[in-house]
């Protein structure tokens, strides 16, 4: 790890001011940043520690039925908060499956969606063809080991996936990342478009600008009929091969609205818009449900070694629809 200088922010204003300095990395939970520094993914001259900035953690109910989660809320605290557990089971489950108990005591809900791809080429300590590590160097995974890589939205310049579990749940919930900046107005960024597809910029991860801080995450109406399914080789403490977040609005047995986001299939949580459209008005368990979900995969494209992920993701969606139906 290169040496750097360090400052701890004592107020939100100070956090924004320090974060806006050039060559500065932001430390919240630290579970990603410290590894970036070790691997050489980041080498900032300065680190601003915002982890104790007052007023940026905790869960509160919003007037009108939503919830606001402070960006610095530790993952375990967010997942086990009664409001999240009861009103947003998809998010609580996604957070609890996202990492080990120890990591969830450090990592924050605002930091988690900022985690970078798990592509082993990206994470290598040695120089590797990777446009996210060295723009213009190419993508070694395109024709390399890509069993766990993208099936949606990839280009020849990057086939990696965004692995965040909470981000997938937040995308299904149509949550909003609320940001602030020192030199400009804050933004309200929809969770479903927070991450950047390689067709837009293969070197980018999120739409956040330097110095821009997520201060909170807002979710609208409760989503009690919701569920998260994470598939992986081992039972726990592993990144997803595929995950599915489903939020249902039912009228008896009929789907009034289904929202579906897949995790670890693209550089952003992937909403199955076409499937969602076709599921509207369908009866649960009816024969049209499978066809509707299949329609959501029309634009899926396998890489050299991951065709199985298309079927896996499709089956995961069907299973999670059932899980969400039974939730309440």
């Amino acid at each position, binding site marked *: 790890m290169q040496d750097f200088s360090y400052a701890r922010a004592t107020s939100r204003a100070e956090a924004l001011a320090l974060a806006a300095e050039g060559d500065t990395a932001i*430390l919240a939970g630290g579970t990603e940043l410290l590894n970036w520094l070790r691997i050489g993914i980041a080498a900032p001259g300065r680190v601003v520690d915002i982890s104790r900035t007052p007023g940026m953690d905790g869960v509160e109910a919003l007037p009108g039925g939503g919830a606001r989660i402070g960006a610095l809320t530790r993952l375990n605290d967010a997942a086990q908060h009664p409001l999240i557990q009861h009103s947003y089971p998809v998010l609580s489950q996604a957070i609890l499956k996202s990492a080990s*108990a120890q*990591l969830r005591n450090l990592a924050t809900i605002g930091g988690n969606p900022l985690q970078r791809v798990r592509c082993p080429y990206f994470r290598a300590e040695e120089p590797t063809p990777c446009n996210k590590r060295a723009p213009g160097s190419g993508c070694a995974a395109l024709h390399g080991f890509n069993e766990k890589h993208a099936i949606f939205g990839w280009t020849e310049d990057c086939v990696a996936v965004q692995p965040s579990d909470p981000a997938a749940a937040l995308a299904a919930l149509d949550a909003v990342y609320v940001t602030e900046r020192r030199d400009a107005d804050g933004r309200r960024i929809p969770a479903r478009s927070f991450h950047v597809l390689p067709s837009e910029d293969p070197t980018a991860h999120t739409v956040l600008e330097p110095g821009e801080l997520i201060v909170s995450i807002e979710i609208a109406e409760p989503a009690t009929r919701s569920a998260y399914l994470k598939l992986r080789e081992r039972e726990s403490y592993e990144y997803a091969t595929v995950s599915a977040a489903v939020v249902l609005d039912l009228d008896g047995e009929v789907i009034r609205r289904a929202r579906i986001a897949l995790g670890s299939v693209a550089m952003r949580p992937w909403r199955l818009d076409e499937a969602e459209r076709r599921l509207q008005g369908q009866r649960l368990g009816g024969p049209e449900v499978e066809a509707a979900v299949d329609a959501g995969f029309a634009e899926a494209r396998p890489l050299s070694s991951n065709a199985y992920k298309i079927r896996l993701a499709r089956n995961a969606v069907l299973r999670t629809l059932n899980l969400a139906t039974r939730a309440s």
Partner: protein
Amino acid sequence: MCPEETRFSARCLVRLTVNGQSHELEVEPRVTLLDLLRERLQLTGAKKGCNRGECGACTVLLDGRRVNACLVLAASAEGCAVTTVEGLAQDGRLHPVQQAFIEHDAFQCGFCTSGQIMSALACITEGHTGSNAEIREWMSGNLCRCAAYPQIAEAVAAAARDMSASEAA
């Protein structure tokens, strides 16, 4: 130079309470809590198995919560209370979790054991010992290559019973 820049410093004074003892150390900002414990305080119970948060061998309690010490900057832990495995036994008497690990043969090589025990203690105090499945899930952040997993789960359950019994008494 803008005023904010002066806030950044190349050395940090860190005051910590470790196992009840106060320490004041000057460190580079890049020094992790794990390396501070091991290299500066010679508390080598917490182990470096991966240095990436991927194994749990460095698990300690930070203000009572279990964390991977390899992912905490010492500077960030300023003012915090740290409990390591060395701080559990009192007056030569093993902590119930330590005793349960021995009784249930919940370790072999012992390298992950410090982290397992700290994680087990937290798992019990967090209330995640309701079932064998719950214990296993909440103990999955601690890898054990000797694979003493079933015995670890038994030990956590037994220690949870012991601790609630002694609390009730």
